[in-house]
Structures are given as C-alpha cells and as structure tokens.
C-alpha cells in the first residue's frame, strides 16, 4: 500500500488538483455560466504561488492564498465586464481572457520567467494538506447542491427570469460563480505549482480548457461527484493506456468520444441509475420510496367523463 502510494504519488496529487480545476469550471456551469475563466485563474494561482514562494519565501498556504485572492478579484472584475454575455459567447470571452493571460506570462520577463516559466518553487506543501483542502471544498460544494442553495442554482441555470421572479438575485449569483470559480482554479494552480515546483506558460492554455471540459462532461456536469469521476479517469487513463503502447492517444480519443455519445448524463448518471436499479431489486421496502407517482396510469382511476377528478396526476406534457 505504502509502496503503491509512493509510486503513484504524483497521480494521486494530480487527481486532486484536477478535481479542483474541474470544479472551477463546473461550478459556474451549474448556474448556466459557460465560463472558462477558471483555467485563467489556474494560471494566476500557479504563477502567484510560485512567485511568492521563490521570491519571498512565503509559506505554502500564504502563497496559494495570495493567488486565490488575486484570482477572486480578477474573477469579480471579469464578471462585471462580461455581465451581458452568455452561452458560447461568454465561453469565447473567457477563453480569450485565459489566452491573454498566457501571452502575458510569456512576455512577463523575469517576473514570470518568460517562455521558460519559473522553477524551484520548493515548499512544504504536503499531499495530505491537498487532500484536506479538497475535502473541505467538496463538502461545501456538496452542500450547495442540496436544499435551498441547490434549488436556487438550478433555477438560475434553467430559467433566470423565473429565478428573478422568485426573488433570486441572479446577477449576484453569477458574480459569485465567477469568484468561486476563480478561487477554486487558483487553488488548483497554486497547489500544482508548489507540488511540481515549476510553472510554465505551457501549463495553461486551450488544451487545459479542453481537458477540464472533457472531465466534467464525461464524469457528469451537475455534481461534484461527476467532477471527481472525470478527474480520476483522465488523470489515470494515460497510465492505464501504457498497456496499449503507442496506440494510447488513439484509444484515448475513442474513449472520450464513446462516453460522450453513449453516456448522456455522464458516468455519474450511469452510476446513479445502476445504484437505483440495484436498490429496487434488493427488495420492496427499499424500493418503496421510488414508487411511481401515478403517471403510469393515464387518466388515473377517475370515472370517464369526469375530467377533473381531484388530485389525479394525469399526463400531458406540454
């Protein structure tokens, strides 16, 4: 176990970093905000943490925190700017934001180390600490998926106008999405920079946008668990695919395409369906809560020609 742990330490660390990164895209997406600014924040966090560590020898959490603060402020300002954008237009604007940051990093001179990036960011950040942070984040996000907050987030995504009419301050929620996404992205970036001790402009770019998106769509876009599934798969897949030798990139593509096509609700959805089916099979008591709500009987048991017998859930999807 410990041998396995040591040998796969990097992948374990990367899984958690990817999880935070995926969440930084997923969180806004849950509110219907198609923002890739989280990737830019990843860059901000990575550079800020590296600079603070190398130049000023800040302790790990202070360095990461500094990046998070910068990214949150940047996220808030960005949210103010792009308040009128939505859908893929917003996606494009935030990709532009990310790419501009990359160019800035390349041209940042000695501060960012130019094309070469920064190295030697040696800190005391431990894997356990990374996991702890992820656990806290996941708990908070899991809470935001349930109850009041969960419903409100759903409303903002599905029908912002309706959301407004029940008193949800949609604009404020959207801004919050940018800020949270910035914090998560920067946290991921900062941790990665300190764990790897380096950061370079290569680390942040369109390919990372593509990777993060793939993770959450294949895993499941509505829940943190989906992001977790996605980050586990796409961190470990290259390792597993060593077995197929130099076909690995081909197989990787095939797997991504297949899951996108045949697993519409993400792997999380598949898992949930399987679980439900299992529970249903495991006995009538457990299955009782799942009882159908009457939609299976058109017209219910009301007498004919008495159309509106009370409370019978009859169909008709409009």
């Amino acid at each position, binding site marked *: 176990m410990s041998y396995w742990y040591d040998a796969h330490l990097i992948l374990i660390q990367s899984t958690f970093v990817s999880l935070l990164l995926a969440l930084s895209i997923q969180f806004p997406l849950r509110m219907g905000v198609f923002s890739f600014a989280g990737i830019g924040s990843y860059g901000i966090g990575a550079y800020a943490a590296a600079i603070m560590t190398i130049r000023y020898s800040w302790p790990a959490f202070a360095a990461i925190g500094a990046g998070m603060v910068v990214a949150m402020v940047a996220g808030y300002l960005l949210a103010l700017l792009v308040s009128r954008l939505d859908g893929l237009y917003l996606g494009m604007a935030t990709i532009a934001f990310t790419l501009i940051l990359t160019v800035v990093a390349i041209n940042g001179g000695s501060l960012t180390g130019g094309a070469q990036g920064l190295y030697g960011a040696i800190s005391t950040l431990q894997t356990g600490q990374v996991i702890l942070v992820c656990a806290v984040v996941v708990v908070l996000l899991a809470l935001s998926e349930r109850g009041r907050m969960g419903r409100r987030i759903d409303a903002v995504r599905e029908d912002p106008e309706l959301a407004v009419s029940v008193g949800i301050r949609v604009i404020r929620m959207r801004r919050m999405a940018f800020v949270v996404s910035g914090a998560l992205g920067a946290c991921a970036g900062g941790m990665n920079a300190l764990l790897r001790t380096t950061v370079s402009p290569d680390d942040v770019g369109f390919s990372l946008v593509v990777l993060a998106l793939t993770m959450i769509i294949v895993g499941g876009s509505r829940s943190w668990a989906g992001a977790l599934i996605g980050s586990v798969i796409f961190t470990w897949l290259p390792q597993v695919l060593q077995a197929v030798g130099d076909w690995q990139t081909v197989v990787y593509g095939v797997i991504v395409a297949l899951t996108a096509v045949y697993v519409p609700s993400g792997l999380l959805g598949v898992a949930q369906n399987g679980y439900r089916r299992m529970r249903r099979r495991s006995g009538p008591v457990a299955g009782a809560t799942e009882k159908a709500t009457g939609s*299976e009987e*058109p*017209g219910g048991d009301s007498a004919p020609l008495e*159309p*509106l017998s009370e409370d019978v859930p*009859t*169909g*008709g999807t409009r």
Partner: protein
Amino acid sequence: MLEIRDLHVSYGKVEAVRGVSASAAPGRITLVLGANGAGKSTTLRTVAGLVPAVSGEVVLDGKVITGRPGHTIVRDGLVLVPEGRRVFAPLTVEENLLLGGYVAPRAKSAETLDRVYEMFPILAQRRRGAAGLLSGGEQQMLAFGRALMSSPRVMLMDEPSMGLAPAMVESVFGAVREIADAGIALLVVEQNAELGLEIADDVVVVARGEVVFSGEAEQARSDASVVRAFLGEAALSQ
C-alpha cells in the same frame, strides 16, 4: 379520407392510447374531446408520424401510413398544428410560413401566403419580425397559418383556441369552418367544448386512452354526460 383504426400507443410502460378509432372526411370537422391526459395529443401525434404506434393503423386515402417517417406524411397532404404553437422562435414570421410550404410547389406557396396574410393581417404586419416575439395569440395564428401553407387535404389541430381572445377564437373557428367547407378534412382537439360543438360535424370523446363516445355533433350536444363533462353544470340547467 382519414381513418384511425384501433390505435394503441405507449410511452415506455405508459399506455397513452388504448384503441382509439376515429375518422375525418372532406368538408367535415371531427371534434375530439377529452380530459387532460386522455391521449388526444398522443393520437394526433401518432397520426402525424411523430410517435410510433404499438398496434392499429392509420389509413389516408386508402393507403396505410402508420410506421412511415413523419416527414413523408406531409407530402401526402396531412398536416398537424401542434399543441402549444411551437413556432420557430428565431425565424421571422414569413420564414415560418414559408417553411410551412416546404413541400408545396413554390408558386402555390406564394399564393397561399397571400391568403394567410389576408386571413391574419397582424402576421403581414410582423412578417419580418422574429416569430418568438409575437404575443401568445399571434403565435397561435402563425401556427395555424403555417399549417395551411402546405395546402393540406387533412388537417389535425391540437387546441387551436388556446390563449386566443374571444373575438379571435371566433374568427379562427370561422376560418376552420371555411377551410372545412373548402373540402378539407379536419380533426380538431379542443378544450373549449361549447364552441367546438358549435362548428363540429362529428364528435369523438376520449377518456383514459379509449373512445367513450362517438357520433354526430347534434347527438353529443344532447347527450347529458358529454354536456356535463365538457360544458359544465350551468349548461345542463339551461
């Protein structure tokens, strides 16, 4: 002209239609009544080829059309005005209408377009505007006009009066009658039974996926159970 014979339709395990038979003949209006979820819309959608039938058949001009892909059925002269309008929101009013005439020859389509504009002047006014910006009632007119554009011989209408102001309902129903008189067979689903019965020739009442009454409109108007169910107690006491 149109014959629906013992149609059965299911959505997964849900049996929405369980043996509906009805027919529509040129120049006649067949009114379909029934409670929410009785299977009226499902019947119409199945006839139009949008939902597969489990069993039973639909015969149009002696040809069985069940199982044929939806887009081929319009070419045979059968068109559906869908429930809830479903106009193409981002397209202009005129584009919506032209699309209705997708299967008609161009010249014919231009001619019908003028007729539709004449029937609904507001549509002519808004021809270059996006259909999605029309008011609910205006959209209903557009959906109606769009269906007319294909110069159908059989027309299915799913709740054409929904959301229309009384005057407009009257003119739409007037138009429906006119269309029928021009020799088109009409099958109309309507919640507004009182009005529907006024223009209908035949009536089919559906409950829980089954036909519970079928006959001439006159007969339906006097059938107490139909009246109670669809016109309200007040009508009965009148």
